[in-house]
């Protein structure tokens, strides 16, 4: 199927209708397998003990947070360059989902850090750049809600998304540099060695499960947004006919 075929919202809705049950089922299965692997298959890390199991949500959370912004960037191009009709919808709906998973990443990271390194938070390069990503998500969502006109909001959000996409590697690079410029007061030992396959496999299954979850939520949310726009159009039509009559 050509991508352009999806440009028709009705076709997308029909596709979503058929796809969603499968996506949801696949998500559930993947989580069942992943959680089982996370708790019963993966061994305890020789240094971190059982807390390594937090990694199985923390890492997918980070991955999805970044994937969310990547998807939004593609959608933003669709809005600004190709004016693909569904690009606005794709752009808007990815933000809250991406933000939620970035939040999960930050909090599970803090809960992992406390037993491991003795502190919930530290201003090192990786944590700080994920926090900045989270703040950018929140700013973007605030922008969507601030502008009344749908089309203008979409264009503004698209520009901000692309600026953010360009800025993310810059932030990562500069924070890396900043974090090594000011040496932290204490030295942290990163627990555990390079990832053992017995831990890697459950991690990959969980990552897959989370990605399928993202896809399910995303397609559903886009469907809702299309319906919401239909409602709005119909309401406007209704008002117009009343005025015209």
């Amino acid at each position, binding site marked *: 199927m050509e991508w352009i075929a999806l440009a028709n919202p009705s076709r997308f809705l029909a596709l979503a209708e058929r796809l969603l049950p499968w996506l949801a089922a696949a998500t559930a299965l993947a989580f069942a397998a992943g959680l089982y692997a996370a708790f019963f298959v993966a061994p305890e890390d020789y240094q971190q003990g059982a807390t390594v199991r937090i990694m199985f949500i923390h890492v997918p959370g980070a991955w999805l947070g970044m994937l969310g912004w990547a998807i939004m960037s593609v959608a933003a191009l669709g809005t600004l360059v190709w004016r693909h009709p569904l690009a606005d919808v794709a752009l808007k709906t990815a933000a809250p989902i991406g933000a939620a998973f970035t939040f999960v990443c930050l909090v599970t990271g*803090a809960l992992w850090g406390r037993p491991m390194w003795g*502190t*919930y*938070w*530290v*201003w*090192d390069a990786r944590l*700080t750049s994920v*926090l*900045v990503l989270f*703040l950018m998500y*929140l*700013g973007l969502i*605030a922008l969507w*809600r*601030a502008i009344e006109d749908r089309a203008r909001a979409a264009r503004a959000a698209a520009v901000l998304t692309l600026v953010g996409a360009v800025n993310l590697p810059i932030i990562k690079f500069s924070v890396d540099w*900043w*974090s090594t*410029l*000011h040496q*932290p*007061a*204490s030295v942290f030992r990163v627990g555990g060695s390079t990832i053992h396959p017995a831990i890697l496999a459950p991690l990959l299954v969980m990552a897959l499960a989370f990605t399928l979850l993202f896809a399910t939520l995303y397609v559903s949310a886009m469907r809702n947004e299309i319906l919401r726009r239909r409602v709005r159009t119909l309401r406007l039509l209704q008002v117009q006919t009343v005025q015209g009559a």
Partner: protein
Amino acid sequence: MTALAALLLRDTRLAVRVGGGALMGVLFFLLVVTMVPFGVGPDLKLLARIGPAILWIGALLATLLGLDRLLAADHDDGSLDLILMGHAPLELAVAAKALAHWLTTGLPLVIAAPLFGIFLNIDGSAIGIVALTLLVGTPALTFIGLIGAALAVALERGGLLLPVLVLPLTVPVLIFGIAAGDAAILNAAPFGAPFLILIALTLTSVVIGPVAAAAVLRHGLD
């Protein structure tokens, strides 16, 4: 009395609905808390030492930025004139508006503060105390800010006038609020003294703020 309750309810609803007012303040608070380590470096001990100050300054700036929602919007669409002509005493009316503003802008900051204290490596019990000082002190910030908001409306000037007017007036609140927080962390000075003064400042501002703001509005908008 019901007129004031209605005003309070209306302002609260508007603030929550415009889908931004309350949460934008918290977001800005988080941004300030995030920016400081970029400036002073990631040294956790240093951040813990200046933590109460960062939280207080962040809360102050977030309150300040929200102040233009307090009176300016009503002035723009004419509701302020209606309030001026209404039966309820103007002092009480603006007090009700300030209370609504604190409930929707200041209180979320107080609730968010313990969470942001984690970013600044502030100790567990100390976080609670700093949050308490914020709970007691943020109303003072709002009610003092009310005066600045009234002046900005009466003089019809926007921009940085409001912060420039309000910040010097809030200095005592800042000093005693941070002193109380530091006392708890460092155990160097007693906590009670600055805390009681903070309470006194709040109570005073709750009275003086509305009275001064009402006077400004009456004379300025005639």
